[in-house]
């Protein structure tokens, strides 16, 4: 059994209005040292796979097909055997 922790974020080139708003709030609160905030999603997926490599391949495909939209988002993930 493997557990994949997947992070999906907007591409660097894409404006993240939520991040901008949160940065604004932080500045209002006095955290002027904050220069950037980016918000993304974190998914936890538990799956069966024959090997680490097979799990990696499966999760990559899931990310490409469903978890992220390549037009606007990037993804990365961490995989651990549990």
């Amino acid at each position, binding site marked *: 059994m493997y557990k994949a922790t997947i992070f999906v974020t907007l591409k660097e080139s894409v404006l993240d209005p939520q991040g901008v708003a949160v940065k*604004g709030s932080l500045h209002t609160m006095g955290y002027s040292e904050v220069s950037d905030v980016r918000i993304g999603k974190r998914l936890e997926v538990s799956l069966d796979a024959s090997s680490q490599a097979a799990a990696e391949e499966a999760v990559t495909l899931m990310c490409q097909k469903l978890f992220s939209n390549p037009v606007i988002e990037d993804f990365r993930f961490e995989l651990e055997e549990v």
Partner: protein
Amino acid sequence: MIEPTAEQIRDQELYKEMGLTSEEYEQVKGHLGRLPNWTEVGIYSVMWSEHCSYKNSKPLLRKFPTTGPRILLGPGEGAGVIDIGDEQAVVFKIESHNHPSAVEPFQGAATGVGGIIRDVFSMGARPVALLNSLRFGELDSSRVRYLFDNVVSGIAHYGNCIGIPTVGGEVFFDNAYDGNPLVNAMCVGIINHKDLQKGVAVGVGNPVIYVGASTGRDGIHGATFASEELNESSEEKRPAVQVGDPFMEKLLLEACLEMVEQNMLLGIQDMGAAGLTCSSAEMAAKGGQGLDLNLDLVPQRETGMTSYEIMLSESQERMLLVVEKGREAEIMAICDKWGLQSAVIGQVTDGNQYRLFQHGELVADIPVNTLVDDAPVYVREEKVPTYYVENESVDPTDALANIDANEAIEKILQSPNMASKKYVFQQYDYMVRTSTAVRPGSDAAVVVIRGTEKALAMSTDGNSRYVYLDPVNGGRIAVAESARNVVCSGAEPLGITDCLNFGSPEKPEVYWQLSKAIDGMSEMCEVLQTPVVGGNVSLYNETKGQPIYPTPVVGMVGLIEKREHITTQAFKQNGDVLILLGDTAIELGGSELQQAYTATIAGRAPILDSGKEKALQQAVLTAIRQGLVQSAHDVSEGGLALAVAESCISGNLGAKIQVETDYDPTLYLFSETQSRILLSVSKDKVEELVQTMEQFHVPAQVIGQVTEGNLEVHVNDQLVIDRSVAQLTNHWEEAIPCKMTASSTSTN
């Protein structure tokens, strides 16, 4: 957690933590003939909470008129039902979600909307519109801005996603609500008479079916929480917050209505406040039957849940059904189509026992009538508050001399209470279902009924400043104003649902406010023939011992016979004649002018004469049906000055007003005397309109005309207001966005 034994509950008085008093605990012992166990104490405590039993308000609620020729179903079921002809009826109810919204505004408001929608479709009705009534502290506080923003987006989130338009409502800001915001949500549905459902369990041996989301440990004891005062520990004490899933509810809605259409259900009830406990116990009690439930069969989201937790969970988007034995498969098939889980969890039994089984053991065994019919009832002590006595001698005009009317109109248009609420309603999808004929911002919202010429008008109202200063008149005004709004849109008022938001009934002054407000409301409902068909009571709205303003919110529904009668407040055409109906006195207690210039309220609220009100409403409805009226607008907060300004702004036209008075011009223009309506009428219809008003003995005074210029007001031939409508519009539209962007709040 290891549950306390029955003896520990008794010896350590653990029942008190759940909200039962010692006397109530003794009554429970009497009903059972033994000591109650943990689950049973939990069940009694929620069933006997104010939220479920109305134990503090029942004797007062009996004063409301609840019957009438059109009333098909009054209070008692999920929602009230009123006949609208053609074998159709309107189903509606308002309910509070104040306490949950105070601690988690987004989800609190969202699940409030979800709950009231279930109340309506569990009657078999198709929900067609949502409204709300919101109260917050002043927007200068960042906490208030956070609450306001998140409540609004929570409402938007739920209503928009499920696809029911949020067509109207009101938002009011006052320090009285600083620590205790009010979130009241109303849902209106339409039903064919033959589809009307009931929340009953009948027929021995018939299965009880659970449909919808799984049960988790969220919201345990929410109904009890809602029946206590908020304090510093509320944040910690709060039950795990329920998270609304409007997508799940959309599926549940479609599935249930499909079952209704195919006539499959004997009984159906929402699992709302007090969850599985309240729904199943009420269904059994109403059906005069016993009930056996096997809790092992209840779909559960978490492992190791105790019977106490399963019974008291307030997980959302769940429905309980009773069907004829043998039809289980049909129900399951519909649930499968909509991707919903369902399970037979018990059956209707002979007798009166409410029995719960878990892991093969009997975990609760209660005479069901004692949960519902034998809940305690308290008549509390009433006492006239000192402030009320002191206000007798206050003349509000003393502090309001020599105010420039130009300045006053700008100031009041920018008060968040009078300013445009576009910031709010542009976040609501008010057009989905393509039936919305009058969008938010007029006196009442109007939704057409497809396939007929008819439409429904609806509004929520309740001026709590008036109720605070004078509960009887304030109560009358709450009902009268909501009816007036509906009449101004061309509808005949049919009936009301009400949400009574008050402080602690254990305080004699608060109980007096509640009692008197109900007197005033009842009288007005009698006179206008708009019975109370349902609603909700929310008590203990206090922070740090300070009660909110007494706030009865009235949700009114009216019937428009023909689409051509639909009328709005906006001026329509240059040259139309302006007619003010009703008499104007100087009544400024609790007025916008008083609040704007003294930052407080004092004196007496305006007096409402119910006979005059009735005549006015009948006269205006008659005139609208005769085709004499271009626009109609209730003259209320801010008086004649604001009524004219609002009609100018919404019509993007100007007006020239000329009036005579012996009073100070500003006081005259901003006086909030009741039972007045501002009409615009085309020139050739003025004579006929005046005749109609004479028939009803309603004073009608020509006060000016619609123009394409400024808003100009002349009092005794002196120009006292002269402002461009564009400029006023700008002030009015920018006031709330300005306050909100002054310092941005957090996102959700």
